Each structure stands twice: as C-alpha cells, then as structure tokens.
C-alpha cells in the first residue's frame, strides 16, 4: 500500500503545478526563428522582383522531386532598359507541398539565397480539402515575402557561431 500512496502523492504534487497545455487554435506558441515549415520564394524589395533566377539547382537537389522550375529572359534587365542585373528570371515555379519532406536541402544549395523555409504558423496550418491545392505556384510562393510577412532565417552552413555559446 505504501507504493500506491506514494503514487497518489506524486499525482497530487503534479496536480498542484501550473498547467502546461496550450489552448492551441486560440493561442499559438511562439516559433523559434529556425522553425522549418515549407519552402517559400523570397522577394527582392529593392528591384521588386523575386531573387530566384530559375537556375534549377534546388530542383536537381530535391530528394523527393517536389519542384518544377521554368526560367525566362528578364524583361526588366538593364540591357532592355530595366533596372535589374538579373539576366534570367523565374518564369514559373511549382512546389508540391504534399511531396515536400522539409529537409532544407533546397535552401542549402541555392546560390542566390532566393528560397527559405517558412518559419511562421502559416507554413504549418496548410490543411486543404483537395490535394491539388497543395501544389503552390509562383504567386502563392512569393506573396508572403513580397508583403513582408516573414522574416526568413537563412542558415550559415558549416560555420561556427562568432559569439560564444553560453
């Protein structure tokens, strides 16, 4: 009986602690900046076009082949009177969020820091009624960065922190 009494004391002491559960749909936990949801394309606010040049690096590196990339000549390039230094630019871009396994490899291989993982709750709450709605096109992928809703975290690969770890 002593053991059962001890168990009861344990449950009683836990009962007196403050609750740890969150009222999820109403209260969202603050996400760390490194949080990885699904990839998004970033928007160059200075020139008002995406950073992505459609170089296919992420498409080739993706383990689950969830991306489709098409490039075009940049209509805003300097040679045709625009103000952009990008000769080529992304034309069409699809990411199938249903296939993506959020491995971060597309972010690592990108030469232009043009893609980042969504680190807001909008990346996690993506349930839809039809699976084809999970195939995101260029407009859907750039909206959040264009309107400044995300503050992306691009990892510094293989480099140690400059500040000491405490």
């Amino acid at each position, binding site marked *: 009986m002593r*053991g*059962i009494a*001890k168990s009861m004391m*344990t449950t009683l002491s836990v009962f007196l602690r403050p609750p740890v559960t969150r009222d999820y749909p109403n209260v969202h936990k603050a996400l760390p900046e490194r*949080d*990885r949801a699904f990839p998004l394309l970033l928007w160059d606010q200075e020139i008002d076009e995406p950073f992505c040049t459609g170089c296919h690096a992420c498409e080739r590196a993706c383990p689950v082949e969830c991306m489709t990339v098409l490039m075009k000549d940049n209509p805003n390039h300097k040679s045709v009177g625009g103000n952009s230094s990008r000769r080529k630019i992304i034309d069409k871009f699809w990411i199938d969020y249903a296939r993506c396994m959020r491995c971060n490899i597309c972010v690592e291989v990108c030469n232009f820091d043009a893609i980042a993982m969504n680190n807001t709750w909008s990346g996690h709450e993506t349930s839809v009624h039809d699976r084809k709605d999970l195939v995101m096109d260029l407009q859907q992928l750039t909206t959040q960065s264009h309107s400044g809703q995300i503050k992306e975290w691009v*990892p510094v690969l293989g480099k140690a922190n400059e500040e000491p770890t*405490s």
Partner: protein
Amino acid sequence: MVTESAHEFETQDLLLNVGPQHPSTHGVFRMVMQVDGEVVRDIIPYIGYLHRGAEKLCETMDYRQGIGFMDRTEYLAAFNAELSYVMAVEKLAELEVPDRAQWIRMILVELNRLASHLMFMGAFGIDVGVFGTPFIYAWREREAIIDLFEEISGDRMMYAYFRPGGLAWDVPTNFVARTREVLTAVNQGIADFDGLLTKNEIFVARTQGIGYVSAADAIDFGMSGPSIRASGVPLDVRREEPYLKYDEIKWDVITEQDGDVYARYLCRLGEMRESVKIVQQCLERLQPGAIMPEKMPRMLRTPPGEVYIRTEAPRGEFGVYLVSKGGNRPYRLKVRSACLSNLQALKHMSVGQYVADAIIVLGSIDIVLSEVDR
C-alpha cells in the same frame, strides 16, 4: 506460466487477430494469436505494413539527400539514426569530425534517447492499464526536449541536422543554458515516473515475472539495447566500441538480472538517469571551435569500399552497412534494426501467458514499426 485444470470436455483453440491498426501494437504491427481461453499458445507476427523501401531509395540519392530518409527510418530517435548513417559515410570518405561537432552530436543523441525513453514510459503505462496519467507526464518533458531540438535544427521530429563531416549549422548561442533548463525539467520527470510507477504495488504485480527471457536466449535471439541488458547481459555499443567521446566521460551500463517486463522498465529508467549525467558532462566539456572540417567538397564523393557502423540507439544496436563503388551515392545501404531482432523474441516471451500479458510484453520491447519495416 499459467496452469489450468483439465477440461472434462474438448475445447478448440481460437485464432485472435490483433492489429495492424490496434493502439497496443504501437504502429502497424499485426499478430495472430492462437489462444486457449485466456492463454496464448502461439503467436504469428506479420510485419511490412510500413515498408517504404528507405534503403533502396537511399541508393538513388547522394549522401546528403539520404539523411532525410534515415530520420524517417527511426522517427522516435531520429538523431541516433542519422548518426549511424553519417558516421558510416565519414568512415568511408575518411573525414575527421571536429571535437565541438562530436560533443554537440553526443548531447543531441543522448537527449533524443531521453525523449524516446519518455515515449516508452508513456506508451507502456497505457499498455499496462494506467491510462492517461503517465502518458501525459511523459509528454510534458518530451515537449521540453523537442522544443529544444526545434530551436536547434528547426524541426520537431525529422531533424536532418547532422551532415557527413559535422553539423549542418551551429547551435543557437543560448544552447548550453537552454539545455540545462531542459535537463532540470527531465530530472523532475524521471522523479515523477519513479514515484508513480516503480514501487506501485499494482504496477509491480502487473509486470513482475511476465515475459521472462534468459540471458542465453536473449543472446541467441540477437536482442540488444535495454531489452538484453534487462536479462543481465552488459552489452552496450557505447562501452564495447566507443564512438564519439563516450570513452572520455564517466557513465555506467545499467543492467538488471530478472529479464522480465519489470526489469526492462527499470533498465530504461536507470538509463534515463545515465543519459542526464552524460549530457551534463558533455556540456562542461563543450568548447568553441569548428563544426565542419576545413576542406569540404561541394559534392561529397567516397572511394570504393564497404563499412559497417553500429551505434547504441534507444532500442538497441542501430547499424548501417554501406557499400560504395565510388561516386556520390551508396551502391548498397542496409540498416540493421534493433527492433526487428528484439521482435523475434516476442513469441518466446509470451507463449504460455495471458493475452493481456502478451500486449505488455510487446510494449516492453518498445518497437518502432518504421524501424522494423524500413
């Protein structure tokens, strides 16, 4: 062993199907039990419901891409699975891992062991019939650990954080302080479990003497991890073939002599205390420094050769056998799963016991079906 009085009439054994989608089978495991009344006479296990061909998929991908699939092989202890894989690639490519990366790897692997054992405590509680309470207690501390992993790697279960050569990126600057906070919470959680279950007469009566396997049988079945250490065999890969920095710090291999379900529970509880000790020592030894070798090629290629690396995952020996014929992808990858070997002893441990005891025997070897089927 259950003894029953002889019947005056003839009875027929009943075939009872359990699973594949039954909460007590911890995933999609199916077993057909031949039962005589309440007593199990035979068990036929059926596996393969979660087979995704992860080994074969890795052969079509370069070494970095394969890491994501290793996470999904062992989803409750993904850092341990990643570790075996990247260590195999490192040995093949002859990469030197910097000290700091090794210490951080060790901290993360041990924290992952804690998270996995907490999961065992919760799920095992449900198996023996303590519905809810231990499960929610386990979730509280596991949440703290997983929040820490999310702050480091960005993901809660599928970390994809280790890379051949070291780590993908460095830990946040408040890593040590945060880890100490988590350890305080985990210590409290271990004390809670100890108080709730270890001496509880109902729990002891339910688990003691059930599912016995002797040391000799456990070795014959190829069991490993806490399941074999509970039978009195001090087999621990961290001690037998030290990898990372396990030979530089002080810790004990926890063994129990009884070989029953209760001993396997005690063994895991003791191991959690050891893991906390290991992480504390690692935090003291952690120094600033590089996390990747200086010269890393953009695309890692390995010379031809074959290598077998084994590490101690929470469920036992997690081995990776890697064959390379040169180039940037494995020619053959074979995962040695501890759960599959431990599962072989299920019939041996549960024949002659009650049906309800067979369920806790299955729970006590802590199977993860994605690791069994791969």
